[in-house]
């Protein structure tokens, strides 16, 4: 499903060069639930972005669904993201000027769909995360846990095979964190969605099938 071989990422600015990832080899099978752990600045987000085609590696190869992304154009990668990948971020990244249901519909705007289809799929996704009662609210009227559930609904509305979650519970207390983890685990179990989750929480990581540990851009396990 996702295949990384000898992946390397160097950030170059005029003054410094940061080696954010070095020689990452990782194979993620369909239906897997994987945690990425590591100290701050160890390259976890960078790795997730490369898996999610948001960023290009400076070395090595990335395959998603058997497709080499090295030669892909920007637009092709965007289409692939739209169909295959859902993102969840620590700070939710909801659009505050849109209602919950409009936020969830957003990814569907970038593929062929009617407004009735979009609405119906968004409501179904919100139902899965248990937020059917809040569809007309604005993000600012919701708690952090609810915001993250909206973000998950947005990530799954397009029925992607892969969800990439970058510290999805980083801003949440333990009760809300457990709720979010439950939702992700259910998606993995019931829908067979592949999930890669960055976390600092050892207990949460242990509930997933596999833990990848990063330190200074290298895999350490």
């Amino acid at each position, binding site marked *: 499903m996702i295949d990384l071989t000898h992946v390397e990422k160097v950030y170059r600015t005029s003054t410094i060069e940061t080696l954010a990832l070095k020689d990452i080899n990782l194979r993620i099978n369909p239906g897997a639930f994987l945690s990425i752990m590591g100290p701050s600045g160890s390259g976890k987000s960078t790795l997730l972005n490369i898996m999610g085609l948001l960023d290009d590696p400076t070395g090595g190869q990335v395959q998603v669904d058997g497709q080499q992304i090295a030669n892909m154009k*920007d637009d092709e990668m965007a289409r692939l*993201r739209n169909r295959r990948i859902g*993102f969840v971020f620590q700070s939710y990244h909801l659009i505050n000027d849109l209602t919950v249901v409009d936020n969830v519909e*957003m990814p569907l705007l970038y593929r062929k769909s009617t407004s009735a289809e979009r609405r119906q799929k968004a409501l179904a996704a919100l139902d899965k995360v248990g937020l059917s009662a809040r569809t007309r609210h604005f993000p600012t009227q919701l708690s952090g846990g609810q915001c993250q559930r909206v973000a998950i609904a947005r990530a799954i509305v397009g029925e992607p095979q892969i969800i990439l979650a970058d510290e999805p519970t980083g801003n949440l207390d333990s009760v809300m964190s457990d709720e979010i983890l439950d939702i992700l685990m259910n998606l993995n179990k019931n829908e067979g969605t592949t999930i890669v989750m960055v976390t600092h929480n050892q207990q949460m990581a242990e509930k997933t099938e596999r833990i990848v540990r990063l330190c200074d851009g290298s895999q350490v396990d």
Partner: protein
Amino acid sequence: MIRHMFKLIWNRKRRNYLLISEIFFSFVVLFAVSTFALFTGIRLSEPLGFDYEDVLVVQTNYEDAQQTDSLSEREVKDIMATMERELRSCREVVDVAWGSSNLPWAGSMWRTSYIYDGIERDYSIHYVSDHFADVMTMPLLEGRWFNADDDAAAITPIVINRKVCETTFGDKPAIGQIITDDDDETPVDFVVIGVVDEYRYRGEMEVSEPSIFFRRTHEDSLTLYAGTALVKVRPDAGVGFQKTITDRLAEISHGWIIGVEALEDARNESLRNIKINALPGVIVALFLVFNVALGLFGILWYSVSRRRGEIGVRRAAGALAAHISWQIIGEALVMATFAILVGIILAIQVPLLDIQPQISTAIYLLAMICSSLMIYMIVAVCAMYPSRLAARIQPAEALHDE
């Protein structure tokens, strides 16, 4: 997608309020300017009803001369007749006519009200001689111009312009209609003997008004206040001829003050004045619109930098770079649409309340369309660069910011 943008703008209306009201303000300014421009353009392109080329206006101001008191009415009439003979004897002169002081571009008006069918209306009055229509190249639509037969007329003959037919007679045939002046104790009737098309004697900037021509000869007492000659000259007459006339007529009249000016020069001067008067308005309008465009550009630019996170998350969700740039332009156009809608609601009041009856509703509508298109264009141009910036935002970086 368009609905999505409307929702975004609508939910952000409080933040966009200032920008939308600025666009609205520009719309109002552009509407005023384009109404004026269209109105002017149409007036400029419409016929005057006469020909001003190769016509000299000769003022014979005997009243200013010292000998005024010593001249009898008879002597004045004779001097004028002599002047006409002298003018006609010049090789350069094609024809000569006389008129009252409210000649084209003279800057003077003469209005009186007369009665037709029990209704009193205002008319512009012109005392002119038998050759006036020839000198001014004014074709008759119906009937005839004045001639010597009118010496024996039982009812005072008048020639009218088409505007009088429209305002006074409606569908009725104009020739033979009687208009009455009942200012004095005994009412006086006038009979229509001819119709000319237009007579926009105040120039291209003024609309047509109902005009009535009365006949003036050297023999009637009107001569005393209709002492301006119109001289049609050959195209090759040259500027020097004006001086020749001035000198000769001064000699004949024994010191009357003679002023000669080409009608075309009078026209050009009046147009020049109009341009000079319109210039500040146009500059202020351009300045305002330029300011709004600059403000718009700045706000859009700022909003793109503030919305990096949103743009990043859209890109992550699969938006193409083109989607992002169209969204920025589209949102600006949606804001313009809100502003234009409010602007049109206001602008539509002008024809509804008939604030300027001279300007037709069609001109207002056209001006609304023009100013809307201009606003859309300005807004699209201002949004162009910010939209490119937005499209170039790298999602990984944008999402990293937070």
